[in-house]
């Protein structure tokens, strides 16, 4: 509305419309309930004001009325629940081909790295009309990445990745707020999302010197000696990582897990937690030896080793889709 006195946040993502629609529905429903209760109270208070000689009429109650005003609100609440759940499903299901941006939160700033390699501090440039997925972790305490104009918010936790996504619809600059209290400069952790027209975004992207994150990850993979065991040519001491990401992995204890970002991260920091079937638990831990940014790069690299996006994982016995079969015991290549 007014620049200095806004009463409604801007709508700049596909989600914003859905959230606003539900909000307005709730405003109407609760507004009606409020008007109902308020007018009843005011009317009764006035109409039945104490008058000399007119006693109150003792009414015990009315079970039909009680059931009515129990079950009708309950029904309305269930509608609200369902609608809220539908919007929530949308919010928590990132589209498959979304551009990825890795976010590392720390006291008291946001460090962002595009998959293509550009690094930003407290700012995120994105093009209009493209899905963006944020893969976020914290270096220290819990933070929360909040963009009111997109109507999205997700806590950013130390020790794991959390995911958030959006689809910007309007060019402009919008606030990023940290929405989980994190210490002294919690209210200073304010950033901006800069949504640009696609042409401008291309121009901005090409101005950056660094290469894609996955390439940086490949370098780290070599530097830290991961390639020694995780060979791509012959069977090494560790599983071949080609095509692993996003697919189910059979573990030594019988469980099957999906190799997502958190799985890759855990495998680096706590390799004994989920040992792949047929392999010995010999991988050393890299806890304390890799920073969050390096972890992000490694995750990006492992992702890049998988088949191109868009293929649903097939949980069949077909050896091609799953991780390479475990070698027969006793025939491990040293």
């Amino acid at each position, binding site marked *: 509305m007014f620049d200095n006195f806004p009463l409604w946040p801007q709508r700049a993502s596909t989600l914003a419309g859905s959230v606003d629609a539900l909000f307005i529905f709730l405003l109407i429903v609760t507004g009606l309930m409020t008007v109902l209760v308020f007018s009843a109270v005011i009317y009764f208070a006035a109409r039945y004001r104490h008058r000399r000689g007119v006693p109150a009429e003792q009414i015990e109650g009315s079970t039909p009325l009680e059931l009515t005003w129990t079950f009708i609100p309950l029904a309305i609440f269930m509608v609200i629940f369902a609608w809220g759940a539908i919007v929530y499903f949308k919010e928590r299901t990132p589209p498959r081909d979304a551009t990825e941006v890795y976010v590392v939160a720390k006291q008291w700033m946001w460090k962002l790295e595009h998959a293509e390699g550009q690094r930003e501090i407290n700012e995120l440039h994105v093009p209009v009309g493209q899905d963006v997925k944020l893969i976020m972790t914290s270096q220290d305490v819990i933070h929360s990445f909040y963009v009111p104009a997109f109507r999205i918010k997700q806590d950013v936790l130390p020790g794991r990745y959390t995911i958030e996504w959006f689809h910007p619809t309007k060019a402009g600059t919008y606030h990023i707020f940290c929405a989980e209290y994190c210490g002294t400069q919690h209210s200073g952790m304010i950033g901006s999302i800069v949504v640009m027209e696609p042409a401008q975004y291309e121009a901005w992207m090409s101005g950056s010197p660094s290469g894609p994150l996955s390439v940086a990850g490949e370098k780290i993979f070599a530097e830290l000696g991961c390639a020694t065991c995780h060979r791509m040519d012959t069977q090494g001491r560790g599983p071949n990582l080609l095509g692993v990401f996003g697919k189910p992995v059979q573990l030594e204890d019988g469980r099957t897990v999906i190799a997502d970002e958190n799985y890759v991260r855990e495998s680096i920091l*706590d390799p*004994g*937690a989920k*040992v792949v079937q047929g392999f*010995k*638990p010999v991988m050393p831990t890299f806890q304390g030896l890799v920073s969050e940014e390096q972890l992000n790069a490694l995750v990006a690299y492992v992702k890049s080793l998988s088949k191109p996006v868009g293929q649903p994982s097939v949980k069949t016995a077909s050896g091609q889709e799953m991780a390479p079969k475990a070698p027969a015991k006793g025939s491990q290549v040293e």
Partner: protein
Amino acid sequence: MSDSTTATHTPTQTSVHEGLHNPALLHHFATEEQQRNSASLGMWIFLATEVMFFGGLFCAYLIYRGWFFGDFAAASKSIDATLGATNTAVLICSSLTVVLAIWAAQTSRRALMLVMLALTMLFGCAFLGIKGIEYKDKFEEHHVPGSTFSFDHVPIPGHPDQYANPQHAQIFFALYFVMTGLHAIHMVIGLGIFAWLFWMAWKGAFTPEYHTPLEIGGLYWHFVDIIWIYLFPLLYLIDRHP
């Protein structure tokens, strides 16, 4: 205390106020039965709060045990199950002596009551002594969480080629010490309560008609015993095979 304008009872009351009433009857209660029932209900409710108090710890323990089973098994193996089992037997015996003390009160066996109360306290002290030995062992093995903690190269039971994660083991020991420590604090309080009960019994305060403090003190003691009966298998017997 009361004067004629305040607490009197109407003749329709079944209290024994006008006649002789037990000096233990507190004045805001109408009858001894009301007082006894109130004391009993009060203690049961207090025990419910204690269940919730320990419950938070059990909840944390069960979650981490589910996530880090192997590491917890390795840590559990390093605490002495024989001492733990002994302590379990000690506590069960002490609950028996409590029950016998109450029976003795109900049947006017003063000497037996005093002996049973004393035995209960003795068993309680034995429990704490054995606990002290266990804690000392843990201290010497550097299994006390904190800066001196170390748990390197300890194999996971059943997986001889895999070592337990020391961080996860430290969580086990943190929970071990907090849970058994909290239990031990409750034992100490229990000893204090029974010392007081012993003194009351010595003074002759307990009769077949009135021994409510013994009953509710006994309830508390049984509760502390039951907490241990859950703690022992959960902490000492993870993945153990004879």
